């Protein structure tokens, strides 16, 4: 049996399990008339503030973009690491190491540049 079938089935099962839990808890909970004040978003007792005014730092998405770029570079290392042993026993270890050394040099340069450029500074 293909693992894909089991993964799909497990995903569906967990989703149904979760939906059932949410549904049961909403069914069993007491129902009271809810005041408008209670339904306002939590705000430490102050009058609810419009969320549109909140400031959000650009750093969040900058971090996310840099993450994607470095993540792909790391994923390129996976086939390399798995094939490393084969190349070693074939006597081509130096070649495969040099290939990745060049790539890693670019990676390290990028990382140093990002740190030096203060793109990762949070204030």
């Amino acid at each position: 049996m293909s693992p894909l079938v089991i993964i799909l089935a497990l995903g569906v099962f967990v989703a149904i399990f979760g939906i059932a839990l949410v549904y049961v808890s909403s069914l069993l909970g007491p129902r009271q008339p809810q005041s408008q004040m209670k339904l306002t978003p939590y705000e430490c007792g102050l009058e609810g503030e419009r969320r549109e005014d909140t400031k959000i730092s650009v750093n969040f998405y900058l971090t996310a973009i840099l993450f994607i770029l470095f993540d792909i570079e790391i994923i390129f290392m996976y086939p390399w690491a798995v094939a490393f042993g084969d190349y070693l026993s074939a006597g081509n270890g130096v070649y495969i190491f040099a290939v990745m050394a060049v790539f890693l040099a670019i990676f390290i340069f990028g990382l140093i540049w990002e740190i030096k450029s203060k793109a990762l500074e949070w204030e």
Partner: protein
Amino acid sequence: MENSLLFYVLSTLIVLFSFGMLVAANPVFSALFLALTMVGLAGLFFHLEAYFIAGVQLIVYAGAVMVLFVMVLMLFDLKKEIAPFSRGTLAGFVKLVCAGALFGLIIGAAKHSTEMMMITPEQAASQSGYAVEMKALATLLFTKYLLAFEVLGVLLLLIAVGVVAVSRAKGGTHVRS
């Protein structure tokens, strides 16, 4: 039997999710639908015995690129879009016709080309686990496509530099100020 059933289930899900991405008025829902599409495509890649590619699809697309999309949409925090679809009946009609014609062309080309290639099921059945696939992939990547591999490293570095430059350019360090 199990094979074709899996394909039909997955492809139906994928088409539904991608259609949801097209029609959802709220861009956050669009992004979540597209993330589901990516997960479904990863499943299809797995089904096609491209195991490592399926994993990379999960990590890169579903786990990184779409998270970035969702995050940026949440940074903007657009509650409702003003005009999610483009206006103009005539223009819309023309666009739909264009897309339909493109679809017809693709299908026609697919039919034509596969008739020429004559691929038989017997040929397709010869596959051998993930380990062989991985090693073949690595060998190709580090010999035949070595230059492309190193250039991609440089490309990623350049993009990183460019993104930092662009996001610093104008308008301060916060999305809303």
